[in-house]
């Protein structure tokens, strides 16, 4: 029995020690991240983003600290970050949010979570890509239909999304999504459904439009969890599918496949990643300075160089990968009424998940 007492005592001691550890770990460890004293933790900017993967978060933390900003990047998927910002609106924790696309930001803005701010670099970007008031564009991403160019010549390849299910040779040869949770999938459907806008139709879309969705799901090969589309292309399971422009070059190399993309005559949907100031932040001035710094031509140029992205800031284009810049210059942007899309996307996703996904 004595053993038991010792055990309980030890457990209590461990708990208490761990409790202290939990309390003190934060300032100490954040002191490591930058050499500033722990007392400065009051000025640490909390940045929410979905664009922290593949070393982006660390790159940003390092560069920001060189420029005198102490930041803590909190990464989350686009939908998670959006929900989190909205849930915290009464007592905001984030100071700045970036990386989410225009669709997510317009949702966040509708919940009154953003503080209007015009960054110093507002004149260097196309205001149309943001809302010109609260969120401002940083990076452009094209949502594309890509195909295995070793199997299909340009002429034999599909010319538009709709070819996938209307032409027999592509049936079951394209990967279709198994969930509409991702931003990429939602943008693909924004691009397809926008063409069939009909205010008298269900959720603003004509019957013809919904039939396209039905066909898309009936004739595609369902995506496989944790198996990349490029892996499936490499193994010959499928030949084509949706992909955001920024990943293509790297995946082609990794999986040793050649992929070309389709530019439909209507154009392709663009996702534009944005930055915004969170309403109710106690470090407003510092946060504004950070936004001014982060969106500047220099930093955006360096970001583009590092991560092969397409900056919106015109001053940053020179530093970006010329191939990427050329690609976007040749790209026709699909004309999409984002307000209409944002209003309806939730309902569309729900309808598609419930009725069309098999």
């Amino acid at each position, binding site marked *: 029995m004595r053993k038991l007492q010792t055990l309980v005592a030890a457990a209590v001691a*461990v708990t208490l020690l761990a409790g202290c550890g939990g309390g003190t770990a934060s300032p100490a460890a954040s002191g490591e991240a930058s050499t500033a004293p722990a007392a400065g933790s009051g000025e640490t900017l909390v940045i929410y983003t979905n664009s922290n993967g593949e070393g982006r978060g660390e790159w940003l933390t390092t560069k920001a600290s060189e420029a005198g900003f102490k930041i803590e990047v909190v990464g989350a998927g686009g939908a998670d970050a959006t929900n989190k910002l909205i849930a915290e609106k*009464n007592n905001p924790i984030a100071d700045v949010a970036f990386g989410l696309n225009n669709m997510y930001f317009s949702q966040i803005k509708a919940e009154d979570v953003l503080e209007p701010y015009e960054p110093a670099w507002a004149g260097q970007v196309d205001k149309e890509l943001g809302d010109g008031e609260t969120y401002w564009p940083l990076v452009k991403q094209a949502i594309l239909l890509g195909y295995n160019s070793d199997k299909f010549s340009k002429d034999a390849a599909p010319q538009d999304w709709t070819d996938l299910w209307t032409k027999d040779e592509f049936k079951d040869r394209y990967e279709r999504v198994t969930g509409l949770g991702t931003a990429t999938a939602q943008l693909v459907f924004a691009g397809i459904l926008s063409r069939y806008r009909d205010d008298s139709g269900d959720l603003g879309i004509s019957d013809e439009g919904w039939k396209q969705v039905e066909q898309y799901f009936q004739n595609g090969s369902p995506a496989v*969890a944790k198996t990349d589309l490029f892996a499936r292309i490499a193994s010959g399971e499928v030949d084509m599918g949706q992909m955001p422009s920024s990943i293509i070059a790297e995946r082609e190399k990794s999986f040793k496949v050649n992929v070309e993309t389709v530019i439909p005559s209507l154009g392709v949907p663009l996702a534009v990643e944005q930055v915004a100031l969170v309403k109710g932040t106690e470090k407003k001035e510092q946060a504004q300075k950070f936004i001014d710094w982060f969106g500047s031509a220099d930093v955006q140029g360096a970001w583009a160089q590092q991560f092969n992205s397409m900056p919106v800031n015109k001053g940053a284009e020179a530093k970006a990968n010329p191939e990427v810049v050329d690609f976007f210059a040749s790209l026709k942007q699909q004309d999409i009424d984002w307000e209409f899309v944002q209003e309806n996307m939730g309902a569309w996703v729900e309808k598609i998940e419930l009725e069309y996904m098999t």
Partner: protein
Amino acid sequence: MSGTSARSMLRSPFVLVVGAVLTWFVAAFLVWPNLNVLIATFFPDGSFSGRAAEKLFSSQRAMKALGNSFLLAVALSITVNLVGIFIVLVTHYFRIRGSRILFLGYASTFIYGGIVLAAGYKFIYGDKGIVTSLLMKVFPDMDPGWFSGFFAVLVVMTFATTTNHMLFVASALKGIDYQTIEAARNLGASTWTILRRIVLPMLKPTLFAVTILSFLTGLGALSAPQVLGGRDFQTITPMILTFTNSPTSRDLAALLAVILGVATMLMLAVMSRLEKGGTYFSISKVSSALQKQDISNPVANVAVHAVAYLLFAVYTLPVVLIVVYSFADGAAIQTGQIALDSLTLDNYVRVLTQQSGLRPFIVSVIYSALAALIAVGGLLFVARLLQRYKNWVASVFEYLLHIPWILPSALLALGLIISYDHPNPLVGGTVLTGTTVILLIAFVTVKIPFTLRMLKASFESVNASLEEAAAIMGAKTLYVFRRILLPLVLPAASAITALNFNSMLDDYDTAIFLAHPLVQPLGLVIKANTDGAEGVQGVANTFVYTVLLMVITGVTMYLVYGRASRRGATGKRARALPPVQPMTASIPGSPVGEALDGKESAAPVR
């Protein structure tokens, strides 16, 4: 013995103190936040709409997926028990050659689960898998995609979720009085009769508890159907997760979750009913430790050995492959092309030399340890009371404590945020959001139902005459609890603590909403490193983190469970049964396992 009515409870100061704390905790952290989130979900404008039900019931896909989830839950409740009881008997009851090695193999499910486990099975039995390729040489006509659909999902999940059997049923088996078995044999009972009439009935409370867990695991199935279910066998959880993430469809998610929750509660009620009135402890005055049994029939003996070793192979192959694949590059993992000379340490170097370094590991270890200890420590008292007093008050509390099983963890987290983002009298007028405490609260609450079920089952199998004797000799309630009951349930309590600890290490769903920005746990880092639209490095990182977690959970299991069972092995048993091997392992099994992979596939949203 004093009565067990609601009125008699009021007379004990012990009950009053525990009751007061429990009432506050249940009200503040189980009822209030979840009520808030359900109201916000179902009455968005102050009025109720039947929209969610209408939409769901008219959706073919939702109904089919829901049906599949139920089918899987029922099927799993049966298959997991079959396999689970078999491996427990083989390792702890029958005399089988190499049972310690077998044990280590079966214990592999303790240390991993979720999407990586499903991927591991796919490497072996999938269309490009090792076993499939071998079979194709023998039967050229067979379908390479044979391992998919309901059958494949059921097989994988059955083998993946025997963790609770290995821990709790095995521990209950060790408590059986050997004299009863000997007596039965002297009266001429066969091995089979003894098993059926003596051994299994004694295991009932534990079997009921683990059956509920298997049922719950089946209902919440996520990654195995995603990887192996194919077109025909998809379950409801992915849909719940998608709808949870979309504010306009959250009512559908909540409704689906409530449907699953109600089913779980019904299952719980049925099991509680079955459990009632039985005597699940040895009533002999001097009980002795279990000795391993020979299987007398030579044919049966050979058959049992063969099946035991076959299962051993089934259990261990995926783990071996996952460890091997964690050294390969992401493209090789996904295409299934692997060459031994292409294995490098690059993946590990990349993961371990990140800027954040070991910090997230430490944060997660501290959070998980605290939450596991608090949950088990607090519920030891509660479970004891619920087992002791069987009346309506106790039942109400018991069901309230299961609330975290009803809602998905993202909704639980949202409930906590909207309830405590302003000064609230329930928590002394403080604001909890943005503090380090709120995540701890969430971790503790999420673990309550599992902890309670297993602790209660373990109290059920304590011989009541022990405490009666102590009480007659004048021992006080707390003294009886501390000196008589606690030592008896401690092995189970340690195992539960370890499982809880392990299951929270890589939590994402709760942490994403509640973590303090400066104290981010491991789950968020794993997510950032594995999500990358499922790219090349992302998939490789997933495997590396799985292996790293296997190491941590293995060490935990060794420290907590291995030592706890050795302590339990007294002199006599120590001779009969060699000291229990330190297990190389621990959790993601249980309902827990699925919660775990929930986070991996829940938010590929980018």
